[in-house]
């Protein structure tokens, strides 16, 4: 087998297809890459520069290309390992499981496949942990679980995590990675999770508890238009696709080429949504700085 075939050739984003008749507005779904981007071979080809990288080196570099700084998508467990003090994560509400309230075509099978492939029970892990010694509540989405879409379980876990932080007055950090938006397969119940999580954040805000939202590639649709964009501080990872309506749907509707960099992290910074773009290498320390500015972990 030639060496080349060992590589996972992963598209950075999916190719934009030529316009086809657009569905009426309001479709929140995003193009879905056929394969997940997380490297699992011995060698990995960078979606940014095309360089092949020894996967172990990539892992040591937090799954950021050492050559072009392309930030690979990473799973929830890897993210938790990168962010939290070793062994400090304690998962909460792990027993929640999605059901199929609508009897939606193929949903149970899709759930099962997602669970097998990701090794997760749902598209988010929530819990508590410590970051540079500072206790916090943490939620991390996983784009590999049904594109990181939000159904009842994701909404419930986020809400319970917020309520947990409200009770314990722990600061809250959520790393969003939800290209799928509100999960179609649970219908309007998924839409309601947007309202539920946002309402919980309303209470957290009134209580003056800090919420830092970290937006990673990709975060779109109903995830983007709810808890992900309601952070007191909003941090983006470089080069992420972030927005509400997916680029393909917009493209199909307006029938024009989208401007370069549309819905990128830089786009969101320039258009006033993001507080900052932070390199993965600096993410942990930046969150720590922010927490200390808010008097968590005992000040300076």
């Amino acid at each position, binding site marked *: 087998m030639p060496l080349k075939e060992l590589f996972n050739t992963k598209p950075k984003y999916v190719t934009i297809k030529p316009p086809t*008749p*657009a*569905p*009426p*507005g*309001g*479709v*929140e*779904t995003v193009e879905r890459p056929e394969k997940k981007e997380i490297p699992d071979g011995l060698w990995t080809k960078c979606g940014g520069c095309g360089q092949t990288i020894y996967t172990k080196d990539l892992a040591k570099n937090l799954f950021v290309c050492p050559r072009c700084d392309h930030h690979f998508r990473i799973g929830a467990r890897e993210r938790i390992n990168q962010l939290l003090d070793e062994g400090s994560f304690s998962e909460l509400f*792990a*027993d*929640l*499981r*999605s*059901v199929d*309230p*609508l009897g*939606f*075509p193929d949903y149970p099978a899709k759930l099962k496949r997602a669970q097998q492939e990701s090794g997760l*029970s749902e598209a988010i892990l929530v819990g508590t942990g410590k970051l540079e010694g500072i206790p916090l509540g943490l939620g991390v989405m996983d784009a590999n679980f049904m594109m990181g879409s939000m159904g*009842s*379980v994701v*909404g*419930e876990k986020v*809400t319970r995590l917020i309520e947990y932080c409200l009770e314990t007055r722990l600061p809250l950090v959520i790393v969003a990675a939800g290209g799928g938006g*509100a*999960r*179609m397969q649970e*219908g*309007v*119940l998924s*839409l*309601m*999770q*947007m*309202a*539920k999580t*946002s*309402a919980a954040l*309303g*209470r957290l805000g009134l209580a003056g508890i800090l919420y830092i939202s970290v937006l990673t590639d990709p975060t779109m649709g*109903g995830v*983007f*238009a*709810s*808890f*992900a*964009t*309601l952070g007191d501080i909003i941090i983006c990872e470089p080069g992420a696709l972030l927005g*509400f*309506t997916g680029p393909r749907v*917009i493209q199909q*509707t*307006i029938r024009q080429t*989208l401007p370069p960099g*549309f*819905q990128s992290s830089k*786009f969101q910074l320039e*258009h*006033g949504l993001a507080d900052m773009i932070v390199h993965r290498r600096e993410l942990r320390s930046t969150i720590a700085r922010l927490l200390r500015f808010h008097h968590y972990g005992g000040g300076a």
Partner: protein
Amino acid sequence: MGNGYTLEFEKKLVELEKKIEELKRYAEEKGLDMAEEIAPLERRAQELAREIYSHLEPWQRVLIARHPKRPTFLELVSFIFQDFLELHGDRNFRDDPAMVGGLAWLDGRAVTVIGEQKGRDTKENLARNFGLPHPEGYRKALRLMQQAAKFGRPIISFIDVVGAYPGIEAEERGQGEAIARNLREMSILPVPIIAVITGEGGSGGALATGVGDRLYMLEHAYYSVISPEGCASILWKDATKAPEAAKALKFNAEDLLAFGVIDGIIPEPLGGAHRDPAQTAANIKRTIVAALEELVKIPGSMLVEERYRRLRRLGVYGTS
């Protein structure tokens, strides 16, 4: 009474109704008494209507919800409220004509009313962007709702929107954040909020003004996470399979009542709201007046608490 626009499945009925009209005109012109001939035809038409409209498929109801003659926000407002006074602008960037809001009297009670306004013709539709708000529309709505809260005024929100607008500028101006902020802020406004989905309840665009103490739907309205066309495109790579998607999404009023997402279904005249806008409006009015009657008795802080509990219950899941 096809209202100049006939849906496929009501063709037979519309033809029969036309015949009856013709017969009546003829009788009048000739000065003939044809009551005996007409009466059975009318009975037949009524039966046919009941037959057709009581067995509608979800997709057929979507077509009714999207009917070009379905009463728009401003039409309903003119029937339901007195002395509507429109207020414009988000105090920031633009007045969005797709989102309308203002002050009005509801049986002697001052309220703030908001809703998307679809156009009646091409010109108005272009001016109002087919009733699809831009971010500044959601922000105008929020401004007016916060103003209502400042003055202790209940809020009535009518929803009829195909979805959030898929455009470059809407993304540039922060559509996602505007929707999210509305969800958060509406959840803590200490005044009664009643929302009614009158036609299309399209995903985030509909939700953006739909958080409240009571949520009602007109009988044929739908409320969905995604348009049936969009769903079909994803599921079967074929937008024409929207009718199947409409079935799968369980987004009709009865489904949502069963899920606990809505508090009640407001009946429409047989055949849909467009067949009798005045009656439709009267039905809406009866429902919101009764709900408001209850809600105004509850102190603001309790309203907010109960509103949260209401949202908190939404979702269906199991445990391992």
